[in-house]
């Protein structure tokens, strides 16, 4: 069995925020190139894994990019409903990243 660490121990920033009124975007930013590369290569934030974590279809992911200047993996998903509609309990989309913190990243 390989050793692993939590994403929250490796990333510098893990955040979510509205991107307009119909989407929420997630930024996972790493402190150095090594950590960034390790997580990219591990695929623990791939489109398929994101779908599994949130229980959504691939079509719900509008963007999924690696952004080298910021050492960041970024993806964007459609909201369940437009921000601030009755029943939406996260108007800013700022707490949707919770399930990402405990993702296991295999040691490289």
């Amino acid at each position, binding site marked *: 069995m390989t050793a692993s660490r939590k994403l929250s121990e490796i990333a510098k920033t893990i955040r979510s925020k509205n991107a307009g009124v119909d989407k929420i975007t997630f930024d996972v930013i790493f402190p150095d190139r090594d950590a960034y590369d390790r997580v990219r290569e591990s695929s623990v934030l791939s489109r398929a894994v994101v779908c599994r974590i949130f229980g959504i279809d691939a079509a719900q992911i509008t963007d999924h990019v690696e952004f080298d200047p910021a050492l*960041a993996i970024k993806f964007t998903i459609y909201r369940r409903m437009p921000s601030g509609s009755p029943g939406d309990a996260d108007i800013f989309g700022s707490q949707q990243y919770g399930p990402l913190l405990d993702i296991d990243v295999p040691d490289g």
Partner: protein
Amino acid sequence: MPASIKHGRSANHTLRIVCPNGHLGFAPIKAGSFRIGCDCEPDLICADSGSCDVGPVPLGADISSSPLQWQMDDLETMLLAARRLGVPMIVGSAGDTGSNSRVDLFVGIIRDLAEKYSVPRFRIGYFYSEVGKDALRRRIVAGDQITGLDGRSPLDLANLDATERVVAMAGIHPYIKLLDQGADVIIGGRSSDCAIFAAPAIRRGFPEALAYFYGKVLECASLCAEPYGGKESVLGEITMDDVKVTALLPEQRCTIASVAGHAMYERANPFYEHFLGGRIDMSRCRYEQYDERTVRVTGPSYIPAAELRVKLEGSGKIGERYVGIVGVRDPYTIANIDLVTAWARQQVVERFGDRGYELHFTIYGRDAVLGDREPLRATPAHELGIVVQGVAPTKGMAEEVCMIATRQMFYARLPQVKGTAGGVAFLLDEVMPASPAYRWTLNHTMRLDDPLELFPTFIAEVGV
């Protein structure tokens, strides 16, 4: 001023802007770093004051989400500094929403401040961004499609009818027009954040690509610096070749990581920024550490739009709203909470039928924040807090919908429950009036012939 801030200007033709706040009024400007910024010979002081992040209620109800006193305080800080320095001041997306009433509010505050402090005469320019529903109706009827963004369908008459208010997102054009007319202070209606900063730069002949990027990097003030800390001022400088951004709070720095990280903040994709008239491509941007607290950026490109399309934001009222709060501690009740809410909902159906109102149960301790996307919703906490929302056409009906649902959770009939004296715990034995419920009815774009056609400008003299 810390010695590390490079005070000398670049040798080239430059334009310097201090941005004191990324959402003016939403939380107060921090005075210390703003004072430092004013000592850096800025050519303008600019800030954005709006966001659709505050949800659809302020636009729909035509109110601010920021407290009036904070708006007055921030405008006072900016106005007195700008007039003392003799440089223009620009505020875009006035009063959170950029609706006409918010522009009037800010213009009124500026007039009052000018009188209160006997500010020597100056010119105030302002413009509106609201779009009339009749104009949109004519477009739809004429077959000129109002196109949905982010997967939305084209606007139809039903959604238009359900809409209370629409604002259009201005580009640089009304700002340039007002600067050309000699405005010393500009209060803008709803605008693209980057346009507020790009307008004076483009007017002075700087390349569009750099100018829009300049706006993009400055618009959230110190959110482009580290360590994290909002509402501190930052200083931007644009030349014909580059953009530089400097953190002004002595404890903060702009780093490659912080500036690049900000480039992707609250947008779906880090490579493109769209606005009326085109977009910039940031995928080949180069970020360099220029000095200890300054980052230099080169390499964005500007792609003019083949067709002018303006973004529209619209909010429509769903109904009046009441809120109830209950707690649950019995593990059996927690395990069967969906039966409890189903029972409560059924009691509302028996009274009002199943249409003509909305009823929402938000279950804190299980899946309130993520809803059905919560991976841990099968393992709820040992106690739950449930917020019940009733939304209906009248306050009386909303209150009753909410009261039935809240109180009937107390009487839910679970077969094995031990506690037969009440199934939930009440924080208050009442339901509370909340803001009316609204929804975003428009997140669309519309074709324009002229980038100024939706944005009438006005100019007046104020002061003594």
